[in-house]
């Protein structure tokens, strides 16, 4: 096996200790990049696999793989992202980087800042995709792993260097805003305190009714779409945790004060439609690997029919495409403009390599 030609992606159930398995994996695949994270559901093919660890191994014919690991100092995910970007760029040594896949700790890492720093550290236009690690529906502990190193407040990434490799991306939600548009009257980065001068948590409690006790996971059923008052930028934000004492809610991305926010809802069918559209965007021929990162909020809505979302993806990408992935606490995709943190989406990255014999 040519060193640097192989990448193994590993997605693990956070309740199961998989460290030994990961060590074993690295031992079996010397010279390979072994990268992974905890999830809110491991995807393999067209189903959420009940197995605690799902692994894919991809070997590039000509391209090589560069990886990097970074600790996030405090809440400065941007610097960690930029360091990773610089390391991969240095490895590429002038060769084109076809694309970068990044995973961040799902509870501490500010995904917005991470991808912003990462994009800045990479050559302009390098496509970046990925997601934030999950912890089932619990939102307590998540981790990322790279080549033997595992950490919570960390980020890991690999980039594929070579001309013959194509990254394609697709990302869709299937959520719609409803009810009044509210103003974010008090927030601090990704912590939301008040909407229209009222505690945000109270609003969620009211809307969730009986299911308020299941927060924070049940709050994912009503994500927020936040819109800039200055331009038409609009982002979906999903909840990570709640603080009863502070009456605050922490989201997977920034909720800037002064922006407007609106509750969103969806149905099972709308989510399926979204998954199909995302897969159609990412579809290409000769897919060597398809990475599906879907939001934990979708899984909560889909419930028993979660697998049907994956059926839609398989139908759109073709049954030959190897699909692996996970339910996440946030998705990164460059499908619609520069790479940004998404929430409540099905995000697909497909990789193909044109092989010359």
């Amino acid at each position: 096996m040519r060193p640097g030609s192989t990448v193994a992606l590993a997605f693990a159930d956070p309740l199961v200790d998989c460290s030994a398995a990961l060590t074993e994996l690295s031992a079996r695949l010397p010279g390979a990049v072994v990268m992974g994270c905890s999830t809110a559901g491991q995807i393999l093919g067209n189903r959420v696999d009940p197995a605690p660890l799902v692994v894919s191994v991809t070997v590039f014919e000509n391209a090589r793989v560069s990886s990097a690991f970074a600790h996030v100092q405090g809440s400065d995910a941007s610097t960690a992202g930029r360091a990773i970007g610089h390391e991969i760029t240095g490895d590429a040594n002038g060769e084109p980087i076809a694309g970068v896949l990044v995973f961040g700790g799902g509870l501490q890492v500010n995904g917005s800042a991470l991808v912003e720093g990462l994009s800045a550290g990479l050559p302009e236009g390098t496509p970046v995709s990925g997601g934030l690690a999950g912890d089932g529906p619990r939102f307590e502990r998540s981790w990322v792993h790279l080549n033997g190193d595992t950490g919570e407040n960390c980020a890991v990434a690999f980039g594929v260097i070579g001309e013959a490799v194509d990254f394609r991306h697709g990302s869709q939600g299937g959520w719609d805003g409803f009810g009044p548009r509210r103003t974010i009257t008090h927030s601090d980065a990704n912590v939301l305190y008040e909407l229209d001068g009222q505690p945000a948590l109270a609003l969620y409690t009211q809307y969730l009714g009986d299911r308020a006790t299941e927060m924070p996971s049940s709050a994912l059923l009503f994500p927020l779409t936040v819109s800039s008052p200055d331009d038409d930028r609009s982002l979906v934000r999903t909840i990570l945790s709640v603080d009863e004492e502070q009456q605050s809610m922490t989201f997977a991305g920034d909720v800037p004060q002064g922006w407007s926010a609106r509750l969103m809802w969806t149905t099972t069918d709308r989510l399926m439609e979204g998954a199909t559209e995302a897969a159609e965007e990412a579809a290409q021929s000769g897919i060597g690997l398809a990475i599906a990162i879907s939001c934990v909020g979708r899984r909560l809505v889909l419930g028993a029919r979660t697998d049907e979302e994956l059926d839609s993806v398989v139908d759109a990408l073709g049954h030959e495409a190897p699909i692996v992935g996970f339910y996440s606490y946030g998705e990164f995709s460059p499908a619609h403009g520069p790479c940004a943190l998404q929430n409540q989406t099905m995000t697909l990255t497909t990789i193909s390599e044109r092989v010359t014999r």
Partner: protein
Amino acid sequence: MNDDYHRTLQRQMARSGIAEDQLTDPRIADLLGRVSAAYEDADKQRYLHDRAFLLASSEMQNLYDRLQSSSQNEAAVQRDRLKAIFDTAATGLIVLEPDGRVFDLNPVAEAALGLDHDAMLGEPLSTILTPADPDDPVIDELRAALEQGRHWRNADTVLMTKHGSTLSVSMLFRAMRTGGGVLAIEDITERKQAQAELIWRANHDSLTGLLNRPALTDRINRALQRSRRYGSQVAVFFIDLDRFKRVNDTLGHAAGDTLLVECARRISSIMREVDTTARLGGDEFVAIAENLTDSDDAYRIAKRIADTIGQPFSIESDLAYVEASIGIAMTDGHGVEPGQLLRDADIALYEAKGHNGSSVVLYTEAMIRRMQHGVDMERRLRHAMYTDQLWVAYQPIFSLSDGRIVGFEALARWNTDNGPVAPEEFIAVAEGAGLLEELGKRLIPEALAFQKQLPTGVDLFINMSPGQIAADGIVEWFDEALLEAGADPRQVFIEVTETDAISDHAITGRMQQLRERGMRIALDDFGVGHSSLSALRALPLDLMKVDRSFLVSSRDDTRAEAIARMVIDLGRLLNVGVIAEGIETEEQLQLLREIGCPMGQGFLLAAPEPAAEALARLT
């Protein structure tokens, strides 16, 4: 039946007659498990969706209600405000529909136009606004502005109210974008009346209601224009009341005002409708008569004015008498300025006043020359008083029985570089300019010094006007002057000219004071004054000087001789001395001696001469 299955699924299985124990195929069991789970998920989803739908609906409804109630509130507040402004505006406001009908009108508009609010709603414009002048186009103008949706203004028009009275108004129409507009009507009747009154006041004398000086110039101007156009003459009468001051002083200013008002009425009654009468202030009036043929016309009018003013004035229980002096100036066919005509009449009046009142004088060019001469003389006299051109001459007074010198009359003399100025000329100027007092104070000390050199039995005669005697502090001044000169007051006569004022208490009191200091009083020019005999009775007199008009110039004039005898007898009877003045012929002197006149003076006997020459006569 598996109770774990969703109830709907359980019912569906029961209807289909499928019992769970019949399901041996594990794939069917798996399917039913998935279907049941999907039902459960759908229920949960629906629960949240239903809840969210209701909550969001209710939130939206609340927002809508809040918005609506706040906008309704706002509209109500706005309406209230507008209504309050409308009802309390000081200006009449009429809201018009696009077709010109009345939508609303405020209380001020109702009151001003005499309209009934409810009856007027919906009425057309022409019903509520009726111009006083049927040809006034305001209604048409307003209607056009309304139709074209533009603003319109009319600063001054007169409307008829429903009560039949007139109303001066200023109107402003403001078109509204939505059609129609608001007509603001301001009642300017009072303002216009006030304006008219202001104009009237600016042009009239408030006491008499006659025109005043500023208005007069305009009237003269217009009269002159007509005069030029029709070739007729215009006369300006400058009327001044004689002895008006006495009315004010004796009967009070209110009586004086009453007299002036009556005067105004009397003068106006003489003038024709087209003529003008004005009061310039004080007791000065001016009348303008137009369409005159010649100066005789003007004289006739002036005489009638003088006559009517000469009639007694009945003021409360008193009768007051004044007379009028009138100066007349006429257009003479040449171009003349209004100001000049008035000035000429004033000059003629000055002349008339000089005639002792109640006379009428027509302006002539000679008058202005005289006046200018007088002004020039006054200027030179003021100069002379400080340059020693003035000096005192002494005319001897003789005892007619023995030719002995019994006194000298001190007489002011003025020598200029161009020769002497006649005393009667410059004394008159000094009197007119109020310089007499100053003149006296400069020359009397010189005369008193002369007196000191006179022997006993030769007296000094000093002339003083009543005004000089009335001056404050004159007695004290004499005390000092006598002391300074070392003169003997018992040898000093003060000659006072007989005039109207001489009987004033102030003057007789002063005479008495002077006599108490040893000086004596002589009445000068006896016989030409108004009240000679009563003056003789009232005044503290020591001597009479008989005016030259009483000198008999011919032996054939027996009448004159009889009067002269009588005067001399009068002096003897009253025990006052008599001096005959102005003896110029031997014949006069002879006659005076024959009738026993004790003393005399005149050019025949000796002319006034410098002190040294006068004193030389005594040695």
